[in-house]
């Protein structure tokens, strides 16, 4: 089995995700980019699991999917509330926590 192609795919996906998190202004798209990062990690986990012939990778991947689902639930709820208050989901305007 060749590992490199999976790792490369994962690295590409991760970089796209990081770009999305840092560059996009729409909070929903930021959340989606986070999903990309997580799924890049999932690919890595499953690939290494198969490579080492163990199910631990898949188990970890399942955990990450479950946690990601929860995270998205909370994240979308926050985004919804922000929109209700400010009629906008632009993260670059959200600097109320400024020190």
């Amino acid at each position, binding site marked *: 089995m060749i590992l490199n192609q999976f790792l490369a795919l994962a690295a590409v996906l991760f970089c796209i995700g*990081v770009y999305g*998190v*840092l*560059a996009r202004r729409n909070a929903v798209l*930021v959340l989606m980019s986070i999903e990309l990062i997580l799924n890049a990690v999932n690919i890595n986990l499953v690939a290494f699991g198969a490579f080492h012939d163990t199910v631990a990778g898949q188990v970890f991947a399942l955990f990450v999917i479950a946690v990601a689902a929860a995270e998205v639930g909370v994240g979308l709820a926050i985004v919804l509330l922000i929109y209700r208050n400010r009629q906008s989901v632009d*993260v*670059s305007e*959200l*600097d*109320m*926590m*400024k*020190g």
Partner: protein
Amino acid sequence: MLENAWVIPALPVVSFFVILFFGKRLPSGGAWVGVAAVALAFGLSLVAVGEWIARPATLEVEAAHAAAPAEAGHGEEGAQPGHTAEADEGAHGPAEGAHDAVREPVRREVTWFSNGPIDIKVGIHIDGLAVAMLFVVTTIALAVHVFSTNYMADDPRITHYFAGLSLFTAGMLVMVTASTTLLLLFGWEAMGLCSFMLIGHWWEKQENSSAALKAFFTTRTGDIGLLVGIAILFFAAGQTFDIATLNDAALNGQISQGLLTVGAVALFCGVIGKSAQFPLHTWLPDAMAGPTPVSALIHAATMVVAGVYLVARVYGVFWEGFNIAAGGVNLGAVIGGVTVVIAALLAFVQTDIKRVLAYSTVSQLGYMVMALCVGAWTAGVFHLFTHAMFKGLLFLGSGSVSHAVGTFDMREMGGLRRFMPTTFKTFMVGSIALAGIPPLAGFWSKDEILTGASAGGYPIMFWMGVLGAGMTAAYMTRCVWLTFFGEYRGQAHPHESPPAITVPLIGLAVLAAVAGFLNAPGVGLFGDWTNNAVTLAAGVEHHAFSPGIALMSTLVALVGIGLAAAWYARNVGPHGITTRNSTARAGYTFLLNRYYLDHLYTGAIVGSIKGPIARAAYWTNQNVIDGVVNGIGIAARRGGNFVYDIVDQGMVDGAINASAAGTGAGGGFLRTIQSGRVQQYAAVFFAAAAIFAVVLIVVTI
């Protein structure tokens, strides 16, 4: 019991603390605790008396031969008490040094503390004198305690009153059983304190608290002498406080005559203060401001005889120091004799019944001191014994009278014999005993004193004593007449007192009637019981009963009574002379003002000392003390400024300000990082993660 006689003083000590701490919660303010303790002490004292009388006379003492005055020596040939007597036998001629056996004193001592080679001991020294005093003190104390349960029943501070009585009784019992001068001083001062507390018991009235202060300060004046005397004798007798050793050393000539005289005079100052001798007698009449039972206990029967007891106890010192055997005059005899006469004179012009009795007490104390200082040791101690009985009785009687009529002023009494027969009868017994009419107690003891003064070579003291006897009889007649005879002049409704008051009166009246027989001629029991090594070694003579002197003193007393009765009852004599004759009026005014002694003390002495001392104290205060204080203040201010400027402002505050500034700057810098923008945080986060990853890879490879 004699070995454990320390229990007797310990009982009232315990009751003092019980009353003090728990008295308020006990029924009737803890009064019955005091009564019970004193009753027990009285019972134990009776046991001790019994054991002492039953004790065989085993201690052989070689008596100095009788012609001590001719010897004019101070113990070169002096007697050695105790066991060494046998060894010295050969040195003396057969004519002198007759052996006499006395009861050996019971001694028990424990070491209180040690200071280098000196052991300071406390303990008991029980001999005939101590046993007699135990009996006197506990008897009077018991009567007074019982009397007080009724007399003081409504007093709001009855608890404090009984605590004071208990502590006082304890102090007196400690003093009479003490084996060292130090312990004696302890009891002595405890009594002074209690006297102050009890005289000022009703301190709400200004004059009462003044009287308490006066009593305290006046006796303190004498106590300075006592302290000095004890210190002198401590070093003179080879660094010991032990009284027996002290007496031996004095009688054996181990202490130089000069030192003994100084020591005796210093001790006598204490006696003058405590036993109210001229010229420090002024506090005693004022002490009548206290409750009447206190007057009976403290200012008649017990505390004021502490000075007399002191003379009797360290008799060796006084015997040699005053050279009593020589006859003629000496300081103690003169003071005693003068006190007898001047106090008796003052008793004539008093209108307050208690003050009459107070001056009578001063006068009788003069008799005791005079007796001891003319060499009549047994007579002095015996007079102390009998006087305690009848004077305690008279004071309690006056208390009973005031209980009935609500005043002590004899001008508002009169005719009370019909209203209070028991009080009248007992008061009569006491008065006759005091006046010295045979066969009551006072006659025997007073007669012994006169005999002793006459035979001891003190003719001046003898005539003073005779004069005093006549005056005593006269002023007591006046007192009894004004109180109990004639018509009632007051406004109250007199009535007989309840049993708690009359029973002690009856008990004391019986004692006052019969106590004199203890040492009557042919009986002589009291002299035998109190005989001790000191008086034997000193060669104190016991003079035989003299019918001539007895007859004369009785006649003088009867004449005194007759004159007073004629003056008051029959209205005979130059009445009104004090208003007609200027000389008589001057004398009367002189007596009314108590010889101006109080004016002398408060006006002249205190006044003249007060001003200069106050000015000197003010100058010292302004210049010395304030200077030191101000100097310290300035130095402290400069030091403070230095510390403030350099240490506090510079170093401490600097460190704190620097750390605060550093924190502020750091915060300001970090503040710029916290932009509140999630994406910026994420960029930093990923940059850091990337850097860590690079570092990890570089390190791993």
